[in-house]
């Protein structure tokens, strides 16, 4: 793990002087923590924006830490309690080049190393405890220590079809992920799931100034991952200047993936400007999905239906060169009764009360 962090820090150290010579326009930093009684998720990230030749370049670095208290179910006689700590490091480069007054070319590439979420790591721990040592069992050699990582590339165009009022953006992305595979055992021995997943994603968005007080953003997404159905998503957001000091932000979205996964969510924030430099906002969010389980006959590690609620309070401040935000919110997540086919993961898919803390800042030069 230290070698990986050193590699990413070395990349950052190599890139920083190049950006410094080019003239940094803006630097952003953020710290985010979502914490519950047995799972703790932390992420810190930084973004440096600088022009290089004809390009506007953004370099983004992030480091995440997922810690959870793995607990096997009561009937898992091979399982044992363990506290697991996983790190994830990611580097993303995004560039924009103005082709003409109305059209901008977008290019991006990135890479990451480590588990991208705690659920993957939890499932990996289960498989490790169950199948790590199957001496004499056919297929035992298939088990290997997981080392998730991935790369991505994207290309797109932004078209300002109505100058200063509206633009449309189309982006195509390709992702390649080495995943922690799933395992199952039957009379033929140990069997292993896919080691790598390829994803193609297409995103179309349009931002519009609808009236003097309303701005909208509409996004449509489609993605397809190896041996899975297409996943479609849509989201619409309205920012409304209610009065001189009041702003409302509404966001509604949904996702569907065959044959049975449907999700929808809604978010409403109301912000009040205390003075020219400080504002406060309250927000609430609701999320609900149908879960990923298709049938009740096979052993499954997929999540049952889940819903969550969030209510938060944030404070923003700004001056000529600095801006910042602090946010805190409790989140309550609930899983539907999973049924017998996911009994082995009751302690993963259980109701949790979380608290999210965010601190972010930005400086312009």
């Amino acid at each position, binding site marked *: 793990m230290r070698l990986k962090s050193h590699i990413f820090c070395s990349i950052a150290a190599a890139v920083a002087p190049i950006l410094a010579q080019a003239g940094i326009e803006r630097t952003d930093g953020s710290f*985010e923590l979502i914490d519950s009684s047995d799972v703790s998720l932390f992420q810190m*990230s930084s973004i440096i924006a600088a022009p290089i030749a004809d390009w506007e370049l953004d370099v983004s670095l992030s480091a995440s830490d997922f810690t959870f208290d793995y607990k096997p179910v009561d009937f898992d006689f091979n399982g044992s309690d363990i506290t697991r700590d996983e790190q994830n490091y990611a580097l993303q480069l995004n560039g924009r080049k103005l082709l003409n007054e109305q059209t901008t070319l977008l290019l991006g590439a990135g890479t990451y190393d480590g588990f991208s979420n705690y659920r993957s790591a939890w499932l990996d721990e289960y498989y490790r405890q169950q199948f790590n040592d199957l001496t004499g069992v056919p297929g035992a050699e298939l088990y290997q220590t997981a080392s998730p990582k991935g790369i991505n590339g994207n290309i797109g165009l932004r078209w300002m079809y109505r100058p200063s009022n509206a633009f449309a953006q189309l982006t195509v992305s390709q992702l390649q992920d080495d995943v922690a595979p799933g395992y199952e055992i039957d009379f033929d021995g140990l069997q292993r799931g896919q080691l790598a997943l390829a994803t193609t994603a297409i995103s179309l968005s349009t931002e519009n100034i609808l009236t003097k007080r309303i701005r909208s953003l509409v996004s449509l997404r489609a993605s397809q*991952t190896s041996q899975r159905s297409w996943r479609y*998503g*849509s*989201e619409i957001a309205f920012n409304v200047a209610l009065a001189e000091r009041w702003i409302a932000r509404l966001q509604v979205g949904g996702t569907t993936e065959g044959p049975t996964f449907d*999700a929808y969510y809604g978010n409403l924030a109301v912000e009040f400007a205390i003075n020219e430099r400080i504002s406060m906002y309250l927000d609430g969010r609701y999320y609900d999905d149908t879960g990923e389980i298709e049938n009740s006959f096979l052993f499954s590690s997929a999540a049952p239906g889940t819903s969550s609620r969030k209510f938060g309070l944030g404070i*923003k401040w700004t001056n000529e060169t600095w801006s910042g935000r602090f946010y805190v919110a409790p989140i309550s997540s609930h899983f539907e009764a999973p049924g017998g086919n996911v009994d082995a993961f009751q302690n993963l898919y259980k109701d949790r009360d979380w608290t999210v803390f965010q601190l972010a800042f930005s400086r312009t030069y």
Partner: protein
Amino acid sequence: MNQRKPFITVPLRLRLPLCLSIAAIALSGCTSVPVYQQQYVSKDGMTFSDNPAETDRVNLISQIEPGSAVSGGAQAAGCTACR
């Protein structure tokens, strides 16, 4: 008696955001706001920004809400029988 299936079957939970999306796209063609009248839509809190100090977005929320993830890509550990 044969029943004709609709050409496109949109899940109920996707219909509201899709309808709002279509409405917003349609409304975008109705008017153009001059730059000198954009003081309200240009102030802090009214723009859609990736700046973490300005956005309301919680990056890690996708770990609690798998359906709100921005793009596809590898989700949980590949599971041999997760369907």
